[in-house]
C-alpha cells in the first residue's frame, strides 16, 4: 500500500490506529478513581505527544541515518514557532499559512546552518550546531527584541495583540487559532459510564500531520536516498573514495530534519499562540536527543515511543508528591513507609530531571538501541522461554559454530 512493503504498511496502520484512538487508549481509568492521575488522555498532553513525536522523527532522520549528532535542533523548533506566530499576527488565526510558513522558514534557516556546520563532522559538527543554536537563542532573547526592530519580543515571548493587523482575519472567525473556522481548542467530551474521553480538534490536526510525516519518514528510510545516508553513517571516507560527494545528501537530510522541527514548532504555536526564546535553548535540543536515544536511534517507531515516554513520565512524575507516596506504601510498617518515601522523594515531583538523567545514562550504557532494542530482547527472551525444549538444542549447536 502507498508504495510500502507489507511490514511497513502494518507498522503505519498500527501507528495510525494508536494515534486516532489515543483518547481512548490513554484514558484507561475512570475519571473518579484514584488511578485517574495516570490518565494521559487530556488534549494538552496528547498534543505534546504527537508534536514532540514529529520533532523526534525529524531528528532521527539526521542522527539515526547519517550519524551526525546535532545539538542545536531546538533552534529550528523556535524559528518555526516564531514564524507561525508572525503569521497569526499579520494574516489571520488560520493555522494553515502559519504551519506552512514555519516549515519554509525553518527549512531556509537549516540550509544556512547546515551548509556551514556540515563542513565538519564528528564532535566538531555537534559543537558547531550547539554554537549556532546558542547564538540563535541569544539573538532571539535579547538582540532581536529591541524597540526599533522587535522580531521576537524577548523575554515576554511573541504573542498576538489586539492591535495587530491580521489582514485576512474574517469578521466572525474565532479569535484563536482555528482551521477554517474550527477552533483548535474545540473539544468534544464523550462520557461512557465512569469514563470520559476528550476529542480535541487540535490533537487530531497534529495526529493527522504526524501520520503524514511518519509515512514520509518511512519512505525516506526505504529509499535509495536513505540507503545513501546509512552509507554515510557507516563509512563516509569510503563513500568519498568511490568518488561520491556525500555533502548534498547530508545537507538534504539536515534540511529535512530541520523542516520537521519547524513543523513541530509551528504546530506548537498553533495549539497555543505563543513563542518564547527558551524553546531554542540547548537544553531543549538535548531533550530531543534524549527522546531519540531513549526510543531507539535509527528505528522508525523509536523516536515516537521515546517522545511519548518522556512526555508521559514527565507529566506523571511531576504530579506525584509525598502524600501520594504515603498512600501507596501505607501497607508497610510506619518506620519503613517513611524510609521508602524518603528514598523515593528526590526522584519525583521536581526531581523528574534527576530520574530522567539516570534513566538516560542507563539506556546509553546498557541499551544503546533504546526501548526498541529492549523490546526486541524481551521478545526474544520470552520466545526462547516459551519454546523451552529448543534451549538445549541451541546450546548444543553453538559450540559447533
Amino acid at each position, binding site marked *: 500500500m502507498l508504495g510500502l512493503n507489507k511490514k511497513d504498511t502494518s507498522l503505519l496502520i498500527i501507528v495510525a490506529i494508536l494515534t486516532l484512538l489515543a483518547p481512548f487508549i490513554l484514558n484507561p481509568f475512570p475519571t473518579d478513581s484514584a488511578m485517574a492521575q495516570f490518565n494521559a488522555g487530556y488534549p494538552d498532553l496528547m498534543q505534546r505527544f504527537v508534536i514532540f513525536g514529529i520533532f523526534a522523527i525529524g531528528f532521527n532522520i539526521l542522527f539515526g541515518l547519517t*550519524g551526525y*549528532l546535532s545539538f542545536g535542533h531546538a533552534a529550528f523548533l523556535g524559528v518555526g514557532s516564531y514564524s507561525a506566530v508572525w503569521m497569526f499576527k499579520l494574516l489571520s488565526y488560520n493555522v494553515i499559512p502559519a504551519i506552512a510558513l514555519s516549515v519554509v522558514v525553518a527549512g531556509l534557516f537549516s540550509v544556512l546552518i547546515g551548509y*556551514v556546520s556540515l*563542513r*565538519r*563532522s*564528528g*564532535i*566538531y559538527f*555537534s*559543537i*558547531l550546531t*550547539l*554554537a*549556532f543554536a*546558542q*547564538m540563535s537563542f*541569544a*539573538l532571539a*532573547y*535579547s*538582540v*532581536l527584541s*529591541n524597540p526599533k526592530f522587535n522580531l521576537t519580543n524577548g523575554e515576554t515571548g511573541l504573542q498576538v495583540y489586539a492591535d495587530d493587523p491580521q489582514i485576512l482575519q474574517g469578521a466572525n472567525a474565532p479569535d484563536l487559532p482555528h482551521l477554517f473556522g474550527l477552533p483548535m481548542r474545540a473539544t468534544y467530551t464523550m462520557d461512557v459510564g465512569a469514563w470520559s474521553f476528550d476529542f480535541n480538534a487540535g490533537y487530531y490536526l497534529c495526529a493527522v500531520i504526524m501520520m503524514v510525516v511518519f509515512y514520509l519518514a518511512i519512505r525516506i528510510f526505504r529509499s535509495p536516498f536513505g540507503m545513501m545516508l546509512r552509507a554515510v553513517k557507516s563509512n*563516509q*571516507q569510503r563513500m568519498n573514495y568511490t568518488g561520491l560527494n556525500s555533502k548534498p545528501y547530508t545537507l538534504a537530510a539536515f534540511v529535512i530534519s530541520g523542516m520537521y522541527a519547524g513543523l513541530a514548532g509551528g504546530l506548537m504555536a498553533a495549539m497555543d499562540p505563543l513563542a518564547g526564546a527558551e524553546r531554542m535553548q*540547548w*537544553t531543549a535540543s*538535548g531533550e530531543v*536527543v534524549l527522546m531519540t*536515544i531513549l526510543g531507539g536511534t535509527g528505528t522508525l517507531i523509536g523516536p515516537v515511543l521515546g517522545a511519548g515516554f518522556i512526555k508521559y513520565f514527565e507529566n506523571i512524575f511531576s504530579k506525584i508528591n509525598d502524600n501520594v507516596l504515603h498512600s501507596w506504601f501505607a501497607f508497610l510498617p510506619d518506620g519503613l513507609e517513611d524510609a521508602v518515601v524518603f528514598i523515593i522523594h*528526590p526522584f519525583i515531583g521536581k*526531581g523528574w*530531571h*534527576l530520574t*530522567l*538523567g*539516570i534513566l*538516560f*545514562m542507563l539506556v*546509553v*550504557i546498557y541499551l*544503546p538501541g533504546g526501548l526498541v532494542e529492549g523490546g526486541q530482547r524481551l521478545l526474544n527472551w520470552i520466545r526462547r522461554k516459551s519454546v523451552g525444549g529448543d534451549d538445549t538444542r541451541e546450546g548444543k549447536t553453538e559450540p559447533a559454530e
Partner: protein
Amino acid sequence: MDAILLQILNGLDKGSAYALIALGLTLIFGTLGVVNFAHGALFMIGAFCAVTLQKIFNLSYEVIDETQTDFLGNPLKVKTPYVESWFGPELGATIIDWSVPLAILFAIPIMLMVGYVMERGLIKHFYKRPHADQILVTFGLAIVLQEIIKYFFGANPIQTPPPAALSGSVDLGVALGFDPNAIIYPIWRLVYFLFAVVIIGGVFSFLQFTTFGMVVRAGMADRETVGLLGINIDRRFTIMFGIAAAVAGLAGVMYGPLNPPNYHMGMDFLVLSFVVVVVGGMGSLPGAVLAGFLLGILESFASTTWATTTIPGINQIIIYLVAIIVLLTRPRGLMGRKGVMEE
C-alpha cells in the same frame, strides 16, 4: 589607552574561568580521548564545595545570654559558630571570613575523588565506544550531578562573599601611571586571575618538569608505545582525569565571589568552554589557555557601549561568531595538533 586596558582587565576574570575549564577539558581529551560534557558540572561542584565549607563554618549553637535582652525584654539568644568557640572569637571570625580561599584545601581532595570515581566508574567503559556515546553519557551525568546539587542546595544562587580584606576595589590606574580613578578594579577579580595563572603554571610545570608529567606527555603522543614499555599508562591517565577535575573544581571554588553559585552555572560555562577548546585547537593545552583568555577579553570588548550601539547584541554572540569563523577557516583551531580528531 586606559579604556583599552580596562576592557582587557575586565575580560580577565571570565577568561580565567574559560581557560581553566578548557584546560581541564583538553587534558581529558588529550589523555583519554574522551569528550567530557560533564566538565561544567565539575566546575559547579567546586563552587558548591565553597558553599558547603561556608555552611560548615557557620554551624552554630545557641546560648541564652542573660545580660542582653531583645526588644521585648526577654533574654537574648546568641548564636555562636562552633568555629568561634573552638578557636576563640577573633581567629574564628577570620576563619569564617576566609572560607572561600580555605575551601581550596577542602575542594582539592573532594574533586580528585570525584574525578577518580567518575573515570573508574563510568568513563572507563566508554573508551572503545563512539564519540557520540561519550557525549551522550557525560551529558546524562551532567544532568544527574546538576539535579543532585539542586536537591541539596535549592535552585537559588547562594552568596559566597570574598574575605573582607580582598573585597572592594583597587585603583590600578595610579599604580600603572594613568590618571586616578581611570581604572578601578575589584580586588577579587585580580585575585582570581592570579590564582588562575598559578594553577595553569602549576599544571604546565607538573607536566613539563616531573617524571610523572613526562610519562603522561609521552602517553598523549603515543599511548600504545608507552604501554609496551611496561608503564601502566591507564593508571596515570586516571590520575590526570582527577587533576583535570580538580582544576575545574578550583576554578569553581574561586568563582563563587564573582557570581553567586547556582546549580546550572556549570551548563552555562560548559557550552562556552567547548567553544574555547575548539577555537584553541582540540588537544592543545596552550591553545586552550590562550583561547580562553582571548575570548574572555574579546567578550569584554564586545560589551562596551561603543560596540553594542554599533552592532546591537554583539556581546551575546561574539564568542559563537568567532568559533564559527575559526572552525571554518582554521578547522584545527589556533594551535591544534595534526591528527587530533580529524576524520
